[in-house]
């Protein structure tokens, strides 16, 4: 497992790049999506516990 993870993370980055806008925008979108999932998890927990 450890070996597989190391191999996965140490894979060399591609020499190809995206257009500049997407190069910068995609990680921002992904971070926001991740945060949104966390918020939804919190809200769902609140609903199940009867707080909302």
């Amino acid at each position, binding site marked *: 497992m450890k070996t597989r993870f190391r191999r996965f993370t140490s894979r060399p980055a591609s020499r*190809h790049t995206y257009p500049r806008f*997407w190069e910068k925008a995609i990680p921002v979108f*992904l971070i926001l999506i991740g945060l949104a*999932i966390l918020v939804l*998890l919190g809200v769902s927990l609140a609903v199940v516990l009867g707080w909302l």
Partner: protein
Amino acid sequence: MNFVTTVLPFLSSAVSLVFALLVWRRFMRKRGAHHLLWGMGMLFYAIGGFCEGYYGALGWNPLIFRLWYLFGAMLVAAWLGQGTAYLLIRRRGLAHALMALLLVGSIYGAVRVFTADLDPALMSGGLHTGSELSGRAIVTPGVRTLTPFFNLYGTVLLVGGAAYSAWLFWRKRVLLHRTIGNVLIAVGALLPAFGGTFSRLGIPGALYISEFLGAVLLFAGFLRATTPIPQAAESASAPQTAAS
């Protein structure tokens, strides 16, 4: 006829239905359980939108409410998410086991929804005006408690799966159309989830507007992900790509 409570849900329903038919056509050509399940999920989305529009246009009907709650509120996200499970989970046995659980859960949910006691007057209680369908009409305890489990399962799989795919493509800097498509799908799936939350908090129109935008973004994301960007256009906007 109110635009937000009647026209918009019918539009969501129409977009979802066209999307479902398109995904099923893809299933007929390419097979893949994920296509079949995404089509089912979008059909559920369409049923939910239709029921909302029906309520906006013609008023309360217990059968329409039950159909809306079962397909539009409880099952849609979970079935869409199950499609993503089949796409991303390599161990077929695990995907089948999750499918079996979802099937049993869906049947149980259907029985609970169709045997629940309803009181439409409760939809206009508190912050809610009653102009939109709301699960508050369900009197029987324990029915609404099931919904967050389905929605959490579906949203995490659908949004998480799309975001994970987008990240993989972005990391390797390949298939830009799939990266963009998956981001659109993730955002489109998040919107109705947040709309439901805002609706619970009493913000009028939040659910129906977010459902419409969600359907449009999911559809756009699917089209983007399945339509490669012409090489010439891609390299014109990224000259460094051509050099490498």
